[in-house]
């Protein structure tokens, strides 16, 4: 089995919590319920808008000063609005599931295989 993170991108002006989008919330919940029941979805959440974001850099290497920027790392037309984790046999199975998430037609979904970090 391989784990993938599905990154949900939305147009900045058509973000998931903007009024016309909010009514689709139940579709996301429905997807999460089905995918979790199938044992494919291993968690995931929506993200607050990018205006709530703080970008952090430690300057001059480890132990250096913390620099903060109000806002997202990159100003882009499309922004990250949520994510979920998938566990699937292969990419085709992961694609088939991701394609059922409303994010795939309300925006775009980027699927990335996870490189596990063993603590």
């Amino acid at each position, binding site marked *: 089995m391989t784990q993938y993170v599905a990154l949900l991108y939305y147009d900045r002006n058509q973000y998931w919590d903007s009024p016309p989008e909010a009514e689709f919330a139940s579709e996301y919940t429905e997807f999460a319920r089905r995918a979790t029941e199938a044992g494919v979805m291993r968690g995931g959440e929506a993200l607050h808008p990018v205006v709530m974001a703080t970008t952090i850099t430690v300057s001059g290497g480890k132990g250096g000063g913390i620099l903060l920027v109000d806002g997202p790392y990159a100003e882009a037309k499309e922004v990250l609005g949520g994510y979920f984790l998938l566990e699937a046999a292969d*990419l085709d199975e992961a694609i088939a599931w991701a394609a059922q998430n409303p994010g795939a037609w309300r925006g775009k979904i980027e*699927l990335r295989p996870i490189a596990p970090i063993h603590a």
Partner: protein
Amino acid sequence: MNATDTLVEVLRSEGLRVLATLARTVGDLAVAEDALSEATITALDTWPRTGIPDNPRAWLTVVARRKAVDLLRRESARSAKETAAFRWGTGAAPDQIEEAIEAMEPETSLRDDMLRLIFTCCHPALGREAQVALSLRTLARLEVPAIARAFLVTETTMAKRLVRVRSKIATARIPYAIPPDTELPGRLAAVLAVVYLIATEAHAPTGGDAVARVDLEAEAIRLARLLAGLMPDEPETLSLLALLLLTSARTSARTDADGDPVTLADQDRTRWNRAAIAEGSTWLSEAVDRSGGVAGSYQIQAHLAAAHSTAPSWQETDWERIVGLYDLLGSITANPVVALNRAVAVTERDGPEAGLAALRTITGLEYSHLWHAALADNLRRLGHTSAAAGELHTAVTLAPNQAEQRLLQDRLRAVRSELR
């Protein structure tokens, strides 16, 4: 075919079969590729002395498996469990052919393995450029330097591209599988598109050392043959093979002694390859029989190629049929280049007035030298010589390579001489 050619040919065709099964059993395309490469090197070292074995596939299978086991062992990052999952033990010595034949997959399962390999190389999660590079390396079994030369990139660039593609297949777990029936049409279309692209790349302007350039057209036909053999019930697969054969029949007539392009109208038709035309026509009628009256895009293009290939001359071409075929093609794929070719046929069928009108309705080809050259041709026939010269001048500046530029320059000179 001399001894070396025969040896290379055997290694290419059998190598693909060995690889297809090895990739499934090893579960890692990159390891399977490396193992087969090592086995190929061993064969190139051994066979010239011993002669090609009676069963070269069995020989390669045994050696490649043994190499794969070695490779998997060497990969320390790999868990013991994964290595154990590899079905065969240490493998036999290459002379233990009987055991190898026994272990070899039956023909039907080999067919499935080859389809798996093809669909993996052309998986839609891989970019088109990646699909093409991988198909030429893995399916056509071309060496990296040859592919690099064909695409005019450095060997390092091509090698890096292939490494990246293989590691994506492994890391993102692109499955080694034949797509389910519901997805097959779309997935097959992607495979055919890759082969078609390899063939059209062959027509693109050449650069660099022409002698060393790989014959991409021949490679595309080779791949199309492979697909037609594996999927004889898919009409578009047969149509693609027909199209490539019919088009390739004209290749030698497409350039003159100086290497300059010769347009279809001016080609010496005695130089066309009649055997290729005959074979292409046979595949085309096979495709028609199997398509149940619904012609796909490759079938229509093959009909177009056949209509030209069987015409005794440009003037005696069946333009009525050609315009009809372009209409059909345009209804499947709205594409300005199809519209341009249709307009050229309209000129021949209905005259320059109608041709000019058809050309002027096309948008999106403002930067195509072919569109401006076609406009010029109609304007000239209508006696608008000065306007024709203007269009040709634009065409010359837009021509993608020097050979095309020279061709258009010559035409421009001819038109200008009419002005005086």
